[in-house]
């Protein structure tokens, strides 16, 4: 079963086109990394998959339902690029509030808060005000919030920014565990190490998908030794095609 299916998507704001000819399938239990430089259209693609934006052309299907679909958002855990947290509330209150918004039942909330905070090691800091949190702690809390409703699909926009290497390793371990349990994960990043951890990579540059596949297949396709080199080579090829036009 495909959790995410994007077909011939063209997207933009007003008359400017941000994304074109995007085709994407992610199956259940898979981790897909969207990599690309800032401004390449990653967040726009994420927003379109979430249904915050209507596709200009093409279609987006999530969990077999066409997007945009407000009710389906209950099954999508989302972590935004900016830490969207309420500073005057404690971490627990933030988790409770977003849990309620996601429609988590009152009886399950306590259990879910424990589950989500254990993953990101925030247990001892649950009753502190978010205003006193460090940048990394805020990032971890955002991740915990995305996990609060035990969603089938996790969409993480730049989840590893500002997180130290040790914790990043830990988070990846948890993400792999979550994926093994049948959840689908889509994340954006511009850190190549993160991309290498994913099952599938989609490279986006200037609104176009320039390469797609597993890390190993990309490395062999471009005849290079790392994902980073594959990305750079794919970028050069795109530039050559553009200058030929």
């Amino acid at each position, binding site marked *: 079963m495909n959790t995410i299916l994007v077909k011939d998507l063209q997207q933009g704001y007003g008359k400017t086109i941000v994304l074109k000819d995007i085709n994407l399938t992610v199956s259940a239990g898979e981790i897909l990394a969207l990599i690309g430089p800032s401004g390449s259209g990653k967040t726009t693609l994420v927003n379109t998959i979430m249904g915050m934006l209507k596709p200009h052309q093409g279609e987006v299907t999530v969990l077999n339902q066409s997007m945009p679909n407000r009710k389906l958002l209950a099954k999508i855990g989302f972590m935004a690029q900016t830490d*969207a947290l309420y500073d005057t509330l404690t971490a627990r209150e933030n988790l409770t509030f977003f849990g309620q918004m996601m429609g988590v039942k009152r009886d399950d909330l306590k259990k879910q808060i424990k589950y989500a905070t254990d993953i990101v090691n925030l247990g001892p800091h649950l009753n502190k005000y978010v205003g006193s949190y460090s940048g990394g702690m805020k990032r971890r809390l955002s991740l915990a919030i995305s996990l609060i409703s035990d969603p089938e699909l996790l969409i993480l926009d730049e989840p590893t920014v500002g997180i130290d290497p040790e914790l990043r390793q830990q988070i990846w371990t948890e993400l792999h565990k979550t994926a093994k349990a049948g959840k689908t994960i889509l994340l954006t990043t511009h850190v190549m190490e993160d991309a290498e951890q994913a099952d599938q990579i989609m490279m986006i540059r200037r609104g176009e998908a320039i390469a797609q596949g597993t890390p190993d297949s990309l490395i062999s396709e471009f005849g290079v030794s790392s994902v980073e080199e594959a990305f750079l080579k794919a970028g050069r090829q795109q530039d050559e095609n553009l200058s030929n036009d």
Partner: protein
Amino acid sequence: MRISAMIRRVLKEMIRDKRTLALMMIAPLFILTLVYFLFQSNNNQTATLGVRNVDSSLVKAVKNDNLKVRQITSDKSAKSIIRDKDYAGVLTQKDQKLTLTLQNSDQTKSGLLKKSLQQAQVKLKMQAAASGLKAQKEVIAAQAKALKAIQETMGAGAQNSGVKAPASLKAAKASAYSVNTHYLYGSSDSTFFDTILPIMIGFVVFFFVFLISGIALLKERTTGTLNRLLATPIKRGEIIAGYLSGYGIFAFIQTVVIVLYTMYVFKIQILGSVWYVILINILLAFVALALGLLISTFAASEFQMVQFIPIVVIPQIFFSGIVPLDQMASWLRPIAHIMPLYYGAQSMSDVITKGAGFFDIWGDLLVLVGFAALFLILNLLTMRKYRQV
């Protein structure tokens, strides 16, 4: 469920933000107290009038409680005397011609002088008329005596002409009026404060609710929590409803505090029902809430939100009744009808100073409900910008 979670969150955030809470609850009382003292004692203003070569009878007539008279002996021009001594005006007389020179930096004082001078002239004329009548009376009495003598000699034939004399005597007596004043609303102690208090109450409620709700939603936009919120299955209407109810609770408390304060500290008598006063203010607060939420859409920062105050809030004060509408240029008057505060202040004045009931104010209330509904619909539409479903 979602709405109540929204409300609880708004309440928690607000209660922890002590400074904003204080601004919302105490600042209005501070402003009203200032207004109370500013407009309480403007009745006993006095002006000083310099006089030169003016008949003493006129000077005597001009004098009253609010006017001090100073005799001028120097030959300097009236203008330089006003500059030197800071008189409100100088009155000079040449033969029968009076010249009044006014400082006119304070129009109230100028008005006071003009009024006093007019009154004095009327007083003098009446005195003159009264003494004239006295003289006439003596003449008539003498004539009557003469007539009587003639009648006696001529017999009862010319009786009619003798009857007229007492009638003109009566007319002379009637010119001494005494005035008894009755007040339909308020009393002789009423000051300008009583007039503007209902308007000011409406204004402070409107202003603070507008500012605080607008900035609160703006914060939600700029920190990204609104976007985050819209990534959950919440309906746009639920967000607006949560905000409206959460801040509505504070607006309600604020209104009650203000009304109680005016009743017990200023001892203002509310002629109508207190409940109407609260109802009007709640409606006004809702309009301000909805407008604040809407306006925050067009602001990118708190600073830009504050920039909307001179455009959205200040003009409303001018059209709220502080300047009476019938004193405005006719082309300006229709503008008042697009100002929510106009309807709020008008119905507040009616209830507080005239004891108006529901049937007198329901039209105004309906307009306020209409404004709130309009702003809410616009809010729902602008929120589409963030999530298209």
